[in-house]
């Protein structure tokens, strides 16, 4: 059983779409989980549908949504205060050292983050790379396992099949509830599904029912 799981993603809602089922499964087993959320998604384009947010109110709205989502998941949350869309321009080593400082305190057995170069959004790639560098700073004997999530269209072709495939259909209601907590971001997707008259839970389950990761190889 894992001792402590730390999730490192840059945006409020990355945890919901990417790993909510995995996280909730760990919580059901009694494993402590902490989410290190890099930014408040200040630059998000989704403003709700119909729009209820604007560029200036969005950070505070997304902060509340993030806190609510973490309540649904029953996990600890640390907001790290970076600014959305700027993570790749920060000094990589500085970010990695910042993350290492937090990880050293939390002593996780498992870290979940994005797979650099295969995570589509520049913040995902940059924060994933910094997280992997942060874990590298541990002595090998104390180093937590890293699960890296790839979402690029060609990741299977380039990297092979992910070695971790979590079927999360058993906790799917909680995953959907976590996504819904991010109302400003989920509205557009949900409106589209309603328009297409699809069963939202079934359709979401088909697309989001499996959470997949690559175990990072530090000796490669």
């Amino acid at each position, binding site marked *: 059983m894992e001792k402590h799981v730390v999730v490192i993603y840059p945006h409020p809602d990355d945890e919901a779409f990417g790993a909510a089922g995995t996280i909730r499964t760990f919580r059901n087993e009694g494993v402590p989980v902490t989410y290190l959320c890099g930014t408040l998604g200040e*630059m998000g384009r989704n403003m709700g549908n119909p729009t209820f947010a604007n560029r*200036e109110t969005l*950070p505070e709205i997304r902060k509340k949504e993030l806190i609510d989502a973490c309540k649904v998941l029953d996990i600890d949350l640390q907001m790290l205060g970076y600014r959305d869309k700027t993570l790749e321009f920060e000094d990589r080593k500085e970010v990695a050292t910042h993350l290492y400082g937090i990880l050293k305190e939390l002593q996780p057995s498992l870290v979940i983050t994005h797979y650099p170069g295969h995570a589509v*959004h*520049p913040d995902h790639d940059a924060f994933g790379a910094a997280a992997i560098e942060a874990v590298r700073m541990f002595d090998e004997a104390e180093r937590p396992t890293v699960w890296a999530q790839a979402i690029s269209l060609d990741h299977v072709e380039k990297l092979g099949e992910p070695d971790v495939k979590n079927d999360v259909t058993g906790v799917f209601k909680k995953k959907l509830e976590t996504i819904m907590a991010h109302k400003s971001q989920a509205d557009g997707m949900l409106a589209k599904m309603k328009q297409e008259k699809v069963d939202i839970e079934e359709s979401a389950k088909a697309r989001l029912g499996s959470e997949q990761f690559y175990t990072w190889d530090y000796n490669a």
Partner: protein
Amino acid sequence: MEPIQIEKLQNEIDQFANKNIYVHLETTNGAYASHFDNNAYNVGAFIRNAKVSFDHGKVVGAGTKYRVGLKLDIGWIYAEGVNQYEKNENGQLLMAGHDREGRLMVALQLSESPFQY
């Protein structure tokens, strides 16, 4: 935010003329544009808290399509595609254009004090 009424917005823009103001200007088609459509190309530009002063500003357009231009001493600022605006409780003038799904495509914002950063 509410749909642009040209006379009202023009009046709001005029309040910021010939003052030292802070500008937020951005446009983007999103970080996932080419992920969802391989014919798309991701573009975006962003500036926050540029200190400027403009001689005159003007909103032009009709229906749901407007442009706003600000004439500076030594240059210009403009945004195309804004369709909603709001004067918020901090006295900041927010103008933005959204697509049908409510996603922001362009924003031009004026403030007499710096935007939170």
